């Protein structure tokens, strides 16, 4: 079928959406509004600004006319229940929402932050097999024609157009009915990556700090998923002791207590040994904390763990320090000091939501 006109307009529309997202990436990132709307592979983005403006009335300002039961003074029937309170003020009640594949978002993020592509390690690179003749297509050389399919198509066409006569079942294929075998290529196992998020959930990490971590993790996920076909994510929370938890718990758990970072690193190491051996996995441990640790002895232990065991088995170790009212921020200084000049350790300071993008850039900007 020829290229349809609507496809051009549709593509153009998608382009405009894309450029709008690009322009407003910072806003989208720091507001965090994308995350709540995440589907499986697509994200629904509210975009009222894309519609053409017009001189028009606000909605339902003076009410309107309806049909149905109800006495004066009673609520008008048929409200969706969301019509309470402030609704009349918002012009964007029917705001246009556009669905954007996560993949595209990752690309936009990559373009905006100028992130380099990651070079996977391990020997399980993408390999394309020669493939087998298992597919069917409409054109091809005569030597590959598929007689059975061709005649089936011809029969379908004749029945549909009413020229098939059961008494005289002659089926004559025409050009459009022809079917040919085609080569299906298969892709072999590809590079896979594991992300291990660790977060300090001690009393000093408040809701806002966790939200920052949540947003950052979302975008890191999006980017790594874009780079690796197969991505596994694990979550570890720690205060004085560490636990492996699911995603929901990770972002919503509220605990108090002391902070012993080494507990998390030990658990992380255990995960890496059990599930993600370096020979097959690209491992990315991320640790978020407000920078307070129990004691300097524990910090020393952490450094040792990292240097001896974690770093050799992972692509890159990232530490993000979220600013909180209580954290001293000492841990980052200690790490920086211990690993000065080591490219495998990246640390960054996240002051607030606006700091998320620069932090992502410093984590993923190395292409490791």
């Amino acid at each position: 079928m020829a290229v349809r006109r609507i496809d051009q307009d549709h593509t153009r529309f998608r382009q405009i959406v894309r450029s709008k997202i690009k322009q407003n990436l910072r806003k989208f990132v720091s507001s965090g509004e994308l995350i709540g709307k995440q589907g499986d592979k697509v994200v629904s983005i509210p975009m009222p600004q894309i519609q053409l403006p017009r001189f028009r009335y606000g909605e339902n300002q003076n009410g309107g006319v309806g049909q149905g039961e109800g006495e004066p003074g009673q609520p008008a029937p048929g409200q969706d229940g969301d019509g309470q309170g402030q609704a009349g003020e918002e012009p964007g009640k029917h705001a246009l929402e556009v669905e954007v594949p996560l993949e595209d978002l990752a690309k936009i993020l990559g373009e905006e932050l100028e992130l380099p592509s990651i070079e996977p390690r391990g020997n399980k690179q993408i390999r394309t097999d020669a493939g087998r003749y298992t597919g069917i297509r409409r054109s091809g050389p005569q030597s590959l024609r598929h007689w059975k399919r061709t005649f089936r198509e011809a029969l379908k066409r004749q029945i549909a157009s009413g020229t098939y006569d059961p008494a005289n079942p002659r089926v004559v294929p025409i050009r459009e009915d022809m079917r040919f075998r085609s080569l299906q290529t298969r892709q072999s196992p590809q590079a896979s990556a594991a992300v291990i998020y660790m977060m300090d959930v001690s009393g000093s990490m408040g809701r806002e700090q966790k939200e920052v971590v949540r947003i950052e993790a979302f975008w890191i996920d999006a980017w790594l998923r874009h780079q690796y076909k197969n991505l596994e994510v694990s979550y570890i929370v720690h205060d004085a002791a560490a636990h492996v938890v699911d995603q929901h718990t990770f972002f919503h758990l509220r605990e108090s207590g002391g902070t012993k970072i080494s507990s998390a690193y030990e658990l992380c190491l255990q995960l890496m040994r059990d599930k993600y051996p370096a020979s097959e996995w690209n491992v990315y441990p991320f640790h978020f904390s407000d920078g307070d640790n129990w004691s300097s002895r524990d910090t020393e232990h952490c450094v040792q763990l990292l240097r001896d065991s974690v770093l050799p088995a992972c692509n890159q170790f990232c530490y993000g320090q979220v600013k909180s009212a209580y954290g001293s921020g000492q841990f980052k200084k200690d790490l920086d000091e211990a690993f000065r000049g080591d490219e495998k350790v990246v640390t960054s300071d996240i002051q607030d939501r606006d700091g998320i993008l620069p932090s992502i850039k410093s984590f993923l900007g190395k292409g490791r």
Partner: protein
Amino acid sequence: MASCRRSSPSSARVGENVANLTPELALLRDETRDLAKRYGLDFYEVIFELVDHDELNMVASYGGFPTRYPHWRFGMEYEQLSKSYAWGLSKIYELVVNNDPCYAYLMRSNAITEQKLVMAHVYGHCDFFKNNAWFGQTSRKMMDVLANHGARVRRYMDRHGVEQVEDFLDVVTSLDNLIDPYSPFVVRDEGKPRDPDASREVRKIAAKDYMDRFINPPEFLERQKRQLQQDEQQSRRFPARPARDVLKFLLDHAPVELWQQDILAMVREEAYYFAPQGMTKIMNEGWAVYWHSKLMTQHLVEASEVVHYCDTHSGTLATRPGQINPYKLGVELFRDIEHRWDTGKFGDRYQACDDPEIRRRWNEPTRLGRKRIFDVRRIYNDVTFVDEFVTPEFAEDQKMFVYGRNPQTGQLEVVDRDYTKVKSQLLDALTNFGNPIIRVVDGNHHNRGELYLVHDWNGADLQFDQAQLTLAGLQKLWGRPVHLETREGGKGRLLSFDGKEATTKEITATTGAAALAFGKGKAPDA
């Protein structure tokens, strides 16, 4: 058939299969058409095309014209239609284009009962297009006109760049509701051009001396003088009278390039083509429902299809409580009219009767109902239709009410069931098909070439953020600062955009209002 195809490349583009009804559907079409004709419906030839849902969504995104100029908003429309179809939220049943011949689309996946219903419905629309007076000035070759527009816009895109043309289209499209939908039917007094030689003296009618006192009495002279002064004043204005057709004003006076002017003219032409459909939504749908219901229930529905038909039909007529469904309101009005004129419920005697009980039971076998509804479909539009035929009895039977927002609770509440209020609210919503009326009052504001618009405020406020953005677009077009005078909750506001900065000022709404009043006195709106 061949000539149709040639005159309308669009139909060939919809799918490879043109006029591709199955033999069964073709038979049904002929049956439906003959039935419709027998009832007195009168239409141009209707060409049905069988399309799948994707093609239908595509055609619908272009407003029924697959050959329209390229613009991303059609792509946006398409995405939304496709999504909502995929999610099962909505499905387009019928799409019919006011053209000669009429084009109508049937969705391939519809059951045969639905196809019958759609065909009958379409013949109703086509009769309405051809006979309703408000469509009298629309081009019946719009398929070709729009294909032509498409070709021209594409050429401009090739020559001046896609983005430039697109930006301009964005601006113009966002202004395309600023037209004067009545102007095709009346000659607007645009004011005479200034005649430098015109005498400033009051001219007397020639008369003998002794008759002069009677032929040129002082009142007459006074009136002449005032007229002269007014003409004088007006001729200094630009435009001479407030221009409701803002697009035309821009077309005539905005400093744009030729290709831009051409695009402006195209968009304006399309706006005028679509305007009657906005003006007669209730009537048009009501008429189509009336006829599909009549043809289906009296003739076309087989016994086995009754349930399916009822399901589909009631889906069309369902009123979400608290909203007006034009299909429902329209068909109920037509049926009410037919009933009233069948039973003599009209005329002075009936109107003069104020006993509700007698009015209810009124029954004189006048049998004029059918004739009356055919007349009504010819000369009314939604505003006059509702104004004349929504009676107290009708409003009560239909359980109509006015709702509003309770400022305390923020909830929408039933405010009133009084029929005059219902009607006036309904008429407000239908006036200018729900768009604000905005006029150009001054094209040389402050004698600095600035553009001054006045919104004819009637109780509802504009969306200010939208208005500011629209002004910004208008400013690009006009080149000089632009102003819009409106009100917010009754208080005067002046929105301005000077090319860099958008401002909102409080003003006392007098200047513009005075200008408007003066404009209205001279050229009343229909």
